[in-house]
C-alpha cells in the first residue's frame, strides 16, 4: 500500500468518522477504500455498539454527552454517529430552552436511527420530535392562532434555504402543522425525567385549504414534507450542508442565498444523486466519499471541537472501553465553543474559520498537548513501539517524518516541518540501542507529538 492510500484512508476516517487508532487504520486499509465507504454508508450491515455495556457502566441522563462521545470513539459504524452530529448541527435544537435532557438526547438517538435514511422520513421524524416541537414553539401552533416559528425554520434552515419559498408558503406550512404537539411529560421532580411523546391534537389542526409551493389542498404536515423533498432546492440545500460538513468549509448558512457554493459542480453532483435516489442520504454519502472532490479535499476543513477532541482521544488510544470521566470531553468541546446538545441558535454552530479565535485556539491547543503528554497512554506507547521497529536509530528528519506519519498522517507545510526538524535535531538521532535512553527517548517523542498536535496544520481535518 502506498503512503497516499494511508493518507486517503485517514482522510476518509477523519471525515466519515472521528479518526482512528493506527491499528484501525491498517484494518481499514486491508479492506480497501471503496469497500470501507460501502461499509460506512450501510451501518445496518455492521455490528452496533454494545448497548448492554453502556447500560451497565454509564448511568444518568447527565452523562449523555459523555456517552455520545464514547459512541463516537468506539462505534463500529462511525458514520452513523457522524450523521447524528451532522443533523444535530443542521436541525440545531438547544437544551438551554427545553431543559429536558431526555427530550434532547432522544432527538440525537432519533438522528442516529434515521439519519442515513430517506430525507422524507428524517423530516417527518423531526417534525414529530418533542424537543424540536418545543424548541420552535409548534406546541403553540393551533388552528386559528398559528405559530409560524417551526414552519418558517423548516423551510429556511432545515430544507430549502432562503429564496426558495414565499411568505405565503410559510403561513400555509405552519397551518399544516397545527396540532402537531406532544403529550405533557411528568415533571422532573420528584422522580426524574419522563419521555415526552408526539401527539396529534385533531381539534387544534387546521383542516382548511392551503397553498404551498404550487400545491393546493387540505394539506397536512406529511403532505408538506412530501412536497419539500421533491424540490430541487431541497436537494441543493441539504447537499451543500453535506459538502460543508464532510468536504470543505463553505460560507456560513445565512449567506447561502447570496453566495454561490465554492464548488457548484460538486453540489450539483450530490444534488443529482439526491433527486435520483428519492432523497436517500446513504446514497448521496456514497457518491460524496467516492468522489474526486472529496478525495482532493484533505485538510481543507477546520476541525470542529468535537472532531478535534475525538481525534486526539483516538490518537492516544484511551477510552476504548468504559471508564469513568467521559464527561470531561463534553466539557472540553464546550470550552472550544461546541456545547453538544446546546447549539447557540437555530442556525447551529458557525463553522470553518469561525471555530477558531485567539481564546478558542488556546483551548484547542492546550487540550491536544495535555492529552498527548502522558506517554503511558496506549496510543503513545504504540507510536513508541512502531518508531522502535524502524531500526536502532532514527535521524532527526526520520524521527519527524515517522511521527507525522503515525500521528495521522499529518501533512504539514515546509515551515512547520522545518521547525519540527530543528527541534528534533537539538538532541540528535533517536537511539534505541541504549536501554538507558528509553526514558529520554520517550520524553522526546512526547514533546515532538505535542508540537505536532499544536501545529496550525493539526487544526484541519
Amino acid at each position, binding site marked *: 500500500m502506498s503512503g497516499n492510500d494511508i493518507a486517503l484512508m485517514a482522510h476518509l476516517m477523519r471525515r466519515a468518522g472521528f479518526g482512528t487508532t493506527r491499528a484501525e487504520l491498517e484494518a481499514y486499509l486491508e479492506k480497501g477504500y471503496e469497500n470501507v465507504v460501502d461499509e460506512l454508508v450501510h451501518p445496518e450491515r455492521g455490528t452496533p455498539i454494545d448497548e448492554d455495556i453502556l447500560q451497565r457502566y454509564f448511568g444518568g441522563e447527565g452523562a449523555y454527552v459523555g456517552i455520545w462521545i464514547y459512541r463516537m470513539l468506539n462505534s463500529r459504524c462511525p458514520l452513523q454517529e457522524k450523521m447524528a452530529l451532522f443533523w444535530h448541527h443542521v436541525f440545531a435544537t438547544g437544551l438551554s430552552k427545553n431543559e429536558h435532557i431526555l427530550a434532547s438526547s432522544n432527538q440525537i438517538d432519533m438522528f442516529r436511527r434515521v439519519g442515513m435514511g430517506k430525507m422524507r422520513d428524517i423530516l417527518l421524524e423531526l417534525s414529530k420530535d418533542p424537543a424540536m416541537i418545543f424548541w420552535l414553539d409548534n406546541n403553540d401552533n393551533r388552528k386559528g392562532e398559528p405559530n409560524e416559528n417551526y414552519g418558517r425554520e423548516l423551510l429556511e434552515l432545515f430544507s430549502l434555504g432562503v429564496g426558495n419559498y414565499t411568505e405565503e408558503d410559510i403561513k400555509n406550512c405552519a397551518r399544516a402543522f397545527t396540532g402537531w404537539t406532544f403529550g405533557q411529560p411528568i415533571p422532573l421532580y420528584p422522580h426524574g425525567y419522563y419521555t415526552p411523546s408526539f401527539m396529534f391534537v385533531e381539534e387544534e389542526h387546521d383542516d382548511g385549504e392551503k397553498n404551498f409551493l404550487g400545491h393546493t389542498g387540505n394539506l397536512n404536515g406529511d403532505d408538506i414534507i412530501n412536497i419539500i423533498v421533491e424540490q430541487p432546492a431541497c436537494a441543493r440545500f441539504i447537499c451543500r450542508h453535506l459538502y460543508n460538513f464532510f468536504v470543505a468549509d463553505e460560507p456560513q448558512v445565512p449567506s447561502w442565498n447570496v453566495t454561490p457554493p465554492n464548488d457548484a459542480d460538486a453540489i450539483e453532483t450530490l444534488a443529482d444523486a439526491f433527486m435520483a435516489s428519492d432523497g436517500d442520504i446513504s446514497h448521496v454519502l456514497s457518491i460524496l466519499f467516492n468522489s474526486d472532490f472529496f478525495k482532493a479535499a484533505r485538510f481543507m476543513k477546520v476541525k470542529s471541537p468535537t472532531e478535534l477532541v475525538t481525534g486526539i482521544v483516538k490518537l492516544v488510544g484511551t477510552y476504548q472501553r468504559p471508564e*469513568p470521566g467521559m464527561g470531561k470531553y463534553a466539557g472540553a468541546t464546550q470550552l472550544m465553543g461546541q456545547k453538544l446538545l446546546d447549539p447557540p441558535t437555530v442556525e447551529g454552530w458557525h463553522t470553518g474559520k469561525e471555530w477558531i479565535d485567539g481564546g478558542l485556539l488556546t483551548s484547542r491547543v492546550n487540550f491536544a498537548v495535555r492529552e498527548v503528554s502522558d506517554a503511558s497512554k496506549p496510543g503513545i506507547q504504540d507510536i513508541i513501539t512502531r518508531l522502535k521497529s524502524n531500526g536502532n536509530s532514527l535521524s532527526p528528519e526520520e524521527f519527524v517524518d515517522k511521527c507525522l506519519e503515525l500521528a495521522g498522517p499529518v501533512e504539514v507545510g515546509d515551515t512547520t516541518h522545518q521547525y519540527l526538524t530543528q527541534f528534533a535535531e537539538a538532541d540528535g538521532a533517536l537511539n534505541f540501542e541504549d536501554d538507558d535512553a528509553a526514558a529520554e527517548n520517550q520524553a522526546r517523542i512526547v514533546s515532538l507529538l505535542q508540537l505536532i498536535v499544536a501545529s496550525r496544520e493539526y487544526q484541519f481535518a
Partner: protein
Amino acid sequence: MGRPYGLLRAGFPYLKCLSMRRTTNFPIDIALGKEGRLYIMCRSDGTAMIRKYTVDDEDLGTIGGYGQGPGQFTWPVTIISDSEENLYVSDEFLHRIVAFNSKGEHIGTWGEHGIDAGQLNGPAGIAFDAEENLYVVDSLGHRVQKFTKDGKFLLGWGSYGDGEGEFQMPWGVAVDELGDVYIVDWRNDRVQKFTADGDFLFEFGKSGSGNGEFNRPAGIDVDLHGDIYVADPGNDRIQLFNAEGRYVQKFLGDATLSKVSLAYMMTNASPNRMRDMADLEPQKYLRKPKSVTVSDDGLMFVPDNGCYRVQVYQKQAVPLTEQEFSPPLRSVTLHQE
C-alpha cells in the same frame, strides 16, 4: 421466618416509596441496618455516595464520596452490612472493597487489581455468608471468590463461558441461610446456584422478556423462605422465583409519592400543574432497577435506579406444614379441590 415445608402466598403488596431526586440520585443498591436504618448506594457519572436513610423516609446524611482516595468510590456496585452494621462497598473501577462503620467512618480498604487468585478485576456483587466471610463476584475475571471480611483469600471458582460454573461478566451474588450461593450471570441471562464451595447445583433463566426470562440481570437476594429475587434492569422489573428457581411473579413498580416528595411538591405550584396535565401512569413503574434487598421480616426494597427512589413491598406469606401442603403433583390438573 425460616424455610417452611410449603408457602401460602397471600400477596406481595406495594407498601411505600422512599426518597426522591436530589436525595438519592441513581440508587444502585441498598443495605439494611438496625432500627430501620437504610444505606442507599448512589452512583452516576462523577458522583457516588452512600445516603443514610430510614424506613420512615428520613435523611440522615451521607457517607463517603466520589474519588479514588481512602473512603471514596468511583464505580460502586454493591453495599452490604455485617452484624455490627459495618458497611462494605465493592468498587468495580478501583478493584477494591471499602468498609465503613455505621457512623460513616472509613475503617478499611482492601483489594489488589489482577487476575490471580485473591486479586480483583471488576468486583461487582458481594454477599456475606453466616460466618461473615465475603463472596465477591469478579465481573471481569468471570469468577467468584471468597474472602474473610478483611480480605484474606479463601477460595474461588468460575471461568469465562456459558457452561455450568462458567460466567460472562457476572454481577450479583446472594447467600441463603443454608450457605448456598446464587450468582447472577449477567451476559448469559441466567442465575446459577452453587454450594458454599462452588459445586454447581442448578441454573434458571434465559434471554428474553417473558416471565422467568432476563435481559441482563443484575442484583439478587434470597429470603428466609428460600425465595429468590432477581433485578432485571433490561426489562425494568424485579422477578421472584421460588427456592427451586421456578418463576412466581414479577414486580413492575407501583410507586406513589414518598413523604419527602409530597413535602416538596406542596411548595412547587408549577410541577403540580404539569402533573395535572400529564399521563401519570408511567410514574409508578420501575426504571432499570439494578438490585433488590429483602429483610428478614419480608420487606422488599428496590432501589429504583432511573427514578431516584426506593420502592418498598411487603411480603405476605403463610408457612405451611406437611399437613397443610399436599405432596408435589407430577402433572398440572384441572381438579378444583
